[in-house]
């Protein structure tokens, strides 16, 4: 019963992620639980568990996505947490690349690099912008109060009509034209 309240941390050296197509799998080495051992764990014997598909959730996706990564069993409908990796940059290179690719797909939040135009029409803002994921046209409701959130000073999160998210990591580093547009329509 108490187990549910404990955070399980995974040792980056004992886990391997592998990516086939868009499917991320995990191989986990754990100590074999044994009631005979003094601390309940029989040292030196590894138990290898393979999860054919795991899902990743960053605990701090906006502020820092390299730390505290929740690893979950995606084959179970309830996607239960298997454990947390505190710093996934310490994974072996192949695993690290697999994790980076998976996170890149799961968190599809394009960062706006340049704003070409913003147009207001009948309560909607029509954006045309260059993002780090490619050029994109999107539409958001013209209610800055509800659909534009300042997550940190100068760092904005925009939510479009499809609940897709776009980030402006720092308004101040945008070019002058983009800044002017953003300021005019987000009322900064």
């Amino acid at each position, binding site marked *: 019963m108490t187990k549910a309240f404990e955070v399980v941390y995974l040792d980056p050296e004992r886990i391997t992620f592998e990516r086939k197509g868009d499917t991320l799998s995990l191989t986990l080495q754990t100590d074999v639980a044994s009631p005979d051992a003094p601390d309940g764990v029989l040292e030196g014997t590894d138990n290898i568990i393979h999860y054919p*598909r795991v899902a990743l959730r960053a605990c701090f996706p906006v502020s820092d996505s390299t730390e505290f990564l929740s690893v979950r069993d995606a084959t179970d409908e309830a996607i239960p947490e298997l454990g947390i990796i505190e710093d996934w940059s310490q994974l072996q290179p192949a695993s690290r690349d697999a994790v980076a690719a998976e996170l890149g797909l799961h968190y*599809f939040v394009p960062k706006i690099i340049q704003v070409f135009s913003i147009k207001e029409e009948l309560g909607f803002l029509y954006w045309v912008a260059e993002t780090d994921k490619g050029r994109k046209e999107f539409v958001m409701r013209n209610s800055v*109060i509800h659909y534009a959130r300042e997550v940190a000073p100068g760092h904005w999160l925009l939510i479009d009509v499809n609940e897709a998210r776009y980030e402006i990591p720092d308004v101040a580093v945008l070019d002058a034209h983009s800044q002017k547009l953003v300021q005019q329509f987000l009322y900064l």
Partner: protein
Amino acid sequence: MRDSTQPVAIPAVVKPGFVAELPPSVTTTLQAEGVQPDALTLAVQSDLGPDGRFGEQWLLMDPHDLWVIERHNGTANLRHKFPLDKIEDAKVERCVGNGLMQVMVDQQPHVLLHYSNELTDRFGRVAHYLHARAEYGEDVPVPDPAADSHTCLVCGRSLVDTSSKVCPNCIQRGKLFRRLIELARPYWGKMGLIVILLVAGVLVDLLPPYLTRILIDDVLRVGGSAGGDPTLLPWLVGSLLGIQLIRVLLTIVTNWSTINVSTRFTSHIRDQLFAHLKKLSVDYFDKNQVGRLMTRINQDTEELQGLVSQLTTFTLNIFLVIGIGVVLFSMAPSLGLYVLIPTPFVVAAAYFYYRYMQPHFRRFWVARWRLNAMLNTFLSGVRVVKAFAQEDEEERRYHNRNVTLLNSRLQVDLAWSKFFPLISFAFSAGGLIIWYAGGRAVLADRITLGTLMAFLSYLGMFYGPLSNLTHISQALNRFLTISQRTFELLDETPEKQPVKPVRTACLGGRIEFDKVTFGYDPYYPVIRDVSFTVEPGEMIGIVGHSGAGKTTLVNLLCRFYEVTRGAIRIDGIDLRDLSMEEVRQQVGIVLQTPFLFHGTLAENIAYGRPDATRRAIIQAAKAANAHGFITQLPEGYDTIVGEGGAGLSGGERQRISIARAILHNPRILILDEATSSVDTDTERQIQEALNELVKGRTTIAIAHRLSTLYNANRIIVINRGKLEEQGPPKQLMDNKGSFYHLVQMQTQLASLDGVAAV
């Protein structure tokens, strides 16, 4: 990095028969696989590439196989290929800003592709198809992935405002206007009157400058061959006074009539909306959030009223501009042309005002809203702020927002102080042109001084209405959009009633669920193949984890929703053949969160039977264990509750709702977690009331605390929408199945709490 300067257009759905639209490289790849594109049954495009950027992937299907092909820089390559018969299941999952589609093949999960949120519906349909095909075989029809998505009903383009079914470009203005005029039929007379009043007002407005002209030319004429006629002076001044008085009177009557008509018209629409709203099914209310509906009914009609008044002003201004224009040109055609010179400036200034001033105002409003929100949070959380000693931090935050507000206010005033003098200059410059040109004409004796003076007066009346008319298209668009939304709500199909309802004198209360399958979204069933029967007078407990589908079963029984497959029968009659009133008269429900309407306690208890006698109300309250506390209240049964009314505790409110159910006297009673949100002592009191209520009725009780179900005849365990176990509680305990485990878990939790185990 790949070249990505091309914007990603909204991806296409290629319908079978139109496969020529597939990119040639994809077709080539398919042909390499030995498949001819015209054999495809489905071709759907995703807008994300495998590299997590905007890109292009195709999901293709023929009657035997499924492929995923990626296209990148004009070349296509095959990513996945699966025989359809080997796909055991398929589903979509929500990620952040996108979604993914997974299939199970040989017990192994495979993620096929990701797609952006725009395409959620589309891929959901495909996944549902694959799931259904795996379950029911290849006869399941291939879906049209584009059906029922948020596209404009007329032009088929993606809809931005999903609260409307037609995009702004496609609103059929003429048709809409005809409908509006039809809707306004009761006000036709009054509207005609308003138009007459408007025309009269314009005519009256045109008179004073004309009289001024006579005054100057024929009365105040000094020198010259013939002097003026002084006797006309009192008459002319008197007439001017009379005209002013008539104008005042006309303005009052016009304004009053306009307000009267627009207010009554919108109130009429509101009534119609509400009357229609009550006929809609619960399903509709699920799909439309309370907030959005509130907006439709309150804000939209409010705005409609404002717009009706605004349209009246526009009409007046159109008459004025035409009237004055005609007078100006007929008085002095040459000067008339000069009037047109400042016109572009006036129009430009009005447009500039909208573009330039409006953002400043909005920025100010937003800043003010943010400051207010912050203050609101602080005031409602002041205890927390103090308990965590964060006063200084809060002060800093408030100060920052206050500075933003200050700056935006300064910007508004600065912009206004620049704008206003400039616009005044533009207006008076127009006048100066007339002074110069008109002055020369007077000196050359082409026109009289009076004509020039009248001309200048008319001019003053000309530019105001003209600048006002520059917003007309904006207001008109807004008006049409809101009208469209209003009509859409009025056009929503009401709850389905049976064509020929079966009448029964009295329902016995036998309930039968026959292989019931149901999903709020038909693509995601939450109840799967559930069958059970409840005999009259029996009490059944439904248990299961949260989200297992317990409440859904009850919603189906109340016919808030219709089953997707299978049937529910009461006394052998399909629920769909019974009239809605009949069903709901026979079914009583006590919910987890009791809902009290604004009104007295007596009215609340008698909600289902407004004609109940006081004796019956007290009897019901007594049986619900509520009489005791009600009579202790200063106003007793007359206590006003609901919004703005007296605060009752959760347990007290629950007992009121039980009294309501007792008075309603249904054959079938549903208790949906009726005691889960109250403390143990209150629970005991409510339980006592419930024991009274269930006597002699068919009862279905959903309970979180299993202890409350020990006197149930049978227990039904639901897990993930499927019936897992059923039988008398004792038997289930002996079987050591899921019910046993649920009880075990609660016992452990209870002992954790230090509470005696069930």
